[in-house]
């Protein structure tokens, strides 16, 4: 068995990313879609930190991961506000029923 290296972390992040996408695509509930987004952000963060550890980039990767976390917080707040608004207007949070874009 090989020692744990960069590839291991990248594989984990890839799988996490794929599951995030899967959640976004398949779940009807908007909150679940948001959870998928959080998964994707986490996988991206793992990538950043892994490259910061195994690449020759200093600590910039970790810093960017921090920024991503902050932005994720902001994004979650806004997205939830939007979800609440949609719920108020259409009394549903199921994304597939929100298809006004079709018209």
């Amino acid at each position, binding site marked *: 068995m090989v020692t744990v290296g960069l590839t291991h972390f990248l594989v984990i992040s890839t799988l996490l990313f794929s599951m995030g996408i899967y959640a976004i695509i398949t779940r009807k*509930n908007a909150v679940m879609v948001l959870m998928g987004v959080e998964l994707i952000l986490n996988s991206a963060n793992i990538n950043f930190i892994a490259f910061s550890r195994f690449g020759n980039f200093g600590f910039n990767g970790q*810093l960017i991961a921090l920024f991503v976390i902050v932005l994720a917080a902001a994004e979650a707040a806004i997205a939830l506000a939007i979800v609440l608004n949609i719920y108020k207007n259409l009394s549903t949070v199921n994304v597939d029923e929100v298809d006004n874009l079709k018209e």
Partner: protein
Amino acid sequence: MNIYDLIFYLFAALTLISAFFVVTNKNIVHSAFYLLFTFFGVAGIYVLLGADFVAIVQLIVYVGGILILLLFGVMLTNKITNVEIKTGTINIFSATIGVGLFAGVLLAAVLYAPWKVTLLQEPVSTTGILGNLLMNEYVLVFELLGIILLIALIGAASIARR
């Protein structure tokens, strides 16, 4: 197999399995709780990558903030009394194929790419270093993030109140 690898596999398994349950579980509240474990696992992986400060922030912000927010979202948008917190699924078939293909391609790329790995340095405490970076090189970004957070706060409040 040393202790580092063991811990890594432990956290990797925790992350991936709980993530899988997040994605497949029908009950949203359950999903949210599984998401808690995913975040824990990711935080552990951060620690293994020598990013102690980021790991702590991950715990505080994600687990303490975002997850709670998501739960609030669930509560506010579902009639709790009717236990209508199940979520339906769509696109199962095409999504499985598409995501499978996608994951396959990415994995192939990750596994066969000739990564140029530098030597591992000893992990050090990163808090001071990150603080210095934030206050010197990245001070502008830091300020901008502060403003963005403020705007997001106001914006979220105003959107939700409308």
